[in-house]
């Protein structure tokens, strides 16, 4: 069997089913590769070799079956996994082993997926570069001096460096899509409510969504079907059938599809190379049979400020539970200090600067006297953005835009300028505020670095993303990184 780590998930599953290889062999091959290359990429925070091999054995014994049985996967460290360290990229949860599995984790286990370990991320999912991890940054396999995107840089880097064929990320303002864009991989944010948030450590509850990440569209679709679906433990989870994403991922043409290019998501702020690849992608969609028009979504320009009011507000509340009482870090408990002091000290030391920035910002936006002007106003703008989407659906089936205004930038380049970092999300945020599904597909290179095509669809029409992505992928195969740093 040639390099098992170069197979797609679908190929891996098939090879295990037809016994040309075993789940244990596949798991071991990936664990070996992680040991060989992750020292340089730093995609993983924790590798669970024992758990992975035990799961692989169960698949080989026929105890677990399904379309992805035996396929290895990297899990973003923001999802709980019983007994396995879950840090959310933060010092405040160092060493915490949850006593329960997230629903996503449980569904993966039940489907026979082999979870290799937990991947690096910006602390509590706040960031666009994975540089805000308390455990050090992850490198982009395309160029180790560059960021892999964020907050889910670990997952996308694991894919791009062939350490896993599948990964799970979470997307609140673009944290699945932007890393996918800058690493040349596929990343999908499902319709909000499409995938359970039970066990997903909350950043911004009304925006967070877990989603599938892979190197191919079909792989992402297969993974999507494993994790999606109603969960009675999550009150915001949708009780409706999972959209037929695998079926859609097998489509090959776009005849009759109406595509809208969002006027506001281009031009100033978008690197020329990114814009160029995007324009070419749009032309390709036309060639594939789609009708393409321009659609104006005038309130999209306010998506960034709205998001940077709503998300930190919800986060400031969600992160209040990290108080040195029941789990996690406790510092300064010297027998003299009060609980209030220990709490404040622990939180100051346990949280990094980006998290603290957002907590203060969120506390401000919710505070008495400011609520109406900030949080309240942002939620109204959210309604306007939703209406822009709904109006768009009257004339088109999907909307497209570049996923991210830039290619992967160098590590450290935007750390001193929070606003510059925030602008990475300018194109991805609207879909989070609306709640509709959105994805990033590899769309060529600019100056040797990947560019992503973003597709957005109406709520519950996740299948449309896969239809577009599959057809596009066939016509514009994803570029492959040289990985010449591998020694």
């Amino acid at each position, binding site marked *: 069997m040639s390099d098992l780590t170069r197979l797609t998930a679908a190929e891996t599953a098939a090879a295990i089913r037809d016994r040309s290889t075993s789940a244990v062999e596949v798991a071991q091959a990936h664990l070996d590769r992680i040991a060989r290359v992750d020292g340089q990429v730093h995609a993983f925070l924790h590798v669970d070799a024992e758990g992975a091999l035990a799961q692989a054995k169960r698949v080989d014994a026929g105890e677990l079956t399904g379309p992805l049985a035996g396929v290895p996967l990297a899990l973003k460290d923001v*999802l*709980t996994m019983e007994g396995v360290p*879950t840090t*959310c990229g933060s010092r405040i*949860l160092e060493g*915490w082993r*949850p*006593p*329960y599995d*997230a629903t996503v984790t449980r569904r993966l286990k039940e489907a026979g997926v082999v979870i290799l370990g937990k991947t690096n991320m910006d602390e509590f999912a706040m960031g666009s570069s994975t540089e805000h991890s308390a455990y050090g940054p992850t490198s982009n396999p395309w160029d180790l001096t560059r960021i892999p995107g964020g907050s889910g840089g670990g997952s996308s880097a694991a894919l791009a460096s062939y350490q896993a064929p599948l990964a799970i990320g979470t997307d609140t303002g673009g944290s699945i899509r932007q890393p996918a864009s800058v690493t040349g991989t596929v990343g999908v944010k499902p319709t909000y409510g499409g995938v359970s*948030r*039970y*066990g*997903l*450590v*909350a950043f*911004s*509850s*009304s925006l967070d969504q877990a989603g599938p990440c892979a190197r191919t569209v079909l792989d992402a679709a297969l993974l999507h079907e494993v994790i999606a679906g109603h969960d*009675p*433990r*999550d*009150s*915001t989870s949708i009780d409706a059938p999972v959209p037929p994403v695998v079926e859609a991922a097998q489509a090959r043409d776009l005849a009759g599809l109406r595509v809208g290019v969002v006027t506001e998501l281009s031009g100033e702020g978008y690197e020329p190379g990114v814009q160029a690849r995007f324009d070419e992608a749009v032309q390709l969609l036309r060639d594939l049979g789609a009708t393409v028009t321009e659609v104006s979504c005038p309130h999209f320009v306010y998506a960034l400020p709205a998001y940077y009011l709503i998300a930190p*507000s*919800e986060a*400031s*509340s969600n992160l*209040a*539970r*990290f*108080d040195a*009482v*029941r*789990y996690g870090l406790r510092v300064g408990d010297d027998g003299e200090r009060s*609980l*209030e002091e220990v*709490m404040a000290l622990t939180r100051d030391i346990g949280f990094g600067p980006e998290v603290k920035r957002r907590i203060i910002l969120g*506390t401000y936006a*919710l*505070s*008495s006297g400011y*609520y109406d002007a900030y*949080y309240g106003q942002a939620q109204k703008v959210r309604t306007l953005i939703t209406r822009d989407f709904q109006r768009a659906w009257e004339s088109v089936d999907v909307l497209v835009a570049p996923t991210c205004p830039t290619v992967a930038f160098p590590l450290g380049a935007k750390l001193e300028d929070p606003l510059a970092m925030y602008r990475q999300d300018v194109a991805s945020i609207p879909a989070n505020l609306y709640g509709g599904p959105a994805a990033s597909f590899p769309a060529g290179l600019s100056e040797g670095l990947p560019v992503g095509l973003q597709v957005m669809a109406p709520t519950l029409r996740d299948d449309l993303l896969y239809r577009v992505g599959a057809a596009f992928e066939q016509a514009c195969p994803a570029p492959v990184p040289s990985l010449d740093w591998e020694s």
Partner: protein
Amino acid sequence: MGYDDDLREFEPVIGLETHVELGTASKMFCGCATEFGAEPNTQTCPVCLGLPGSLPVVNEKAIESTIRIGLALHCDIAVWCRFARKNYFYPDMPKNFQTSQYDEPLCTDGYLDVLVEGEVVRIPIERVHLEEDTGKTLHVGGATGRIHGASHSLVDYNRAGIPLVEIVTKPVVGTGARPAEVAKAYVAELRDVLRGLGVSDVKMEQGSLRCDVNVSLNRPGEEWGTRSETKNVNSLRSVERAVRSEVERQAELLRRGERVVQETRHFHEDTGHSTPGRSKEEATDYRYFPEPDLVPVAPDPAWVKELQAALPEAPSLRRARMTAELGLSDLDSQAMVNAGVLDLVLATVAAGAPAAEARNWWLGQLAQAANSAGVDAADLAIAPEDVARVVALVAEGALTATLAKQVVDGVLAGEGSPDEVVAARGLAVVSDESALTAAVDEAIVGNPDVAEKVRGGKVAAAGALVGAVMKATRGQADAAAVRRIVLERLGVTED
């Protein structure tokens, strides 16, 4: 100056906030059990512990109970409402926010009529909403188990997440000289309503019914004064005392020309007064916002109509009906309500006792026992069925009134059921002829002079012999039978 003078000089405005722990089987947002008294932290899960990643799911029974409470209090039921987060830090709150309701409560604008000294007072209700309870903190190392001087604290989250209904009155004006009585009557009546609905066991001493009492004073014609809030009011009696104590305290301050500070005070059962807690000058900013992990609640109007139709008879109506049926007067009825024993009396009647007897027991010996033990009558160790049994025993002659009192004392002391106490203490009326005859003969032998008098025709003197027998039998002899036997034995007939 005294309390009554205070209320002549100032007008009180009172408000009551009541928290009711619902008696649901499981918690508000998770399936953990809600049993009282379990070992610490054995009724918790990722949700009620607020573990990272956990999410709440609303208990449908809690919604139903809250709506029924609102309907019983004549409230409007929201067509659509939401939960909100109330953000503040305290170790008994696992998430450091409480999932509650803010500007969109489930029920609004109701009222409860209460009887105070024969008059109906209508207490306006501002809102009824649903939230979750906190855990319990034990302060270790301090003098009284309170926070001050404690070296550390221990937290138990069994109670965290139990559904809590908050009932808030509008400011109640015009109570004149009776703010304390009105407050107490309101809480008593509210408790009756809640008990009747079956939504909570409303045991103040177990914390399933908690009151915060708000009081302000103003001179007639002036604006309302600054109010204080008194917490830790754990009994009906404390409600009354808390109001009184605040009226006195505030009146004195105001007379001296001083300001009443807006603050939260802590009530002490032992002293009957409150001490200041947190100053509310710098009010905590709770930063309320709609709870994103929960979706809106929109009760189906048809369902609300069904709930309304199925409401039990309001306690006030039931009382009126039953007291009329039983021939008890309004005064009786009111006395029984005030003593918190009306339901007990009715239950005793239901168990077979005549109304008057039931009333006499509960308003007499039992009310006294409750008072001296400092508990509600309902929490005495004696049940209505027991009282009915004692009444029956007296009626059939097995107990005299005196013996009955001792039997009741025994039951109250936890010695068992009335029959068990009778047997254990040997309190049965002695009516066995031969036993009585033997006792009479002994008395005659022991009192020869008296016996002579009786033989000589002074029948009245027989009383002394009856007395002697009663003494010898510790009051357990059937007095009438003893008298008869004395006369027989002495060969005398009654004129």
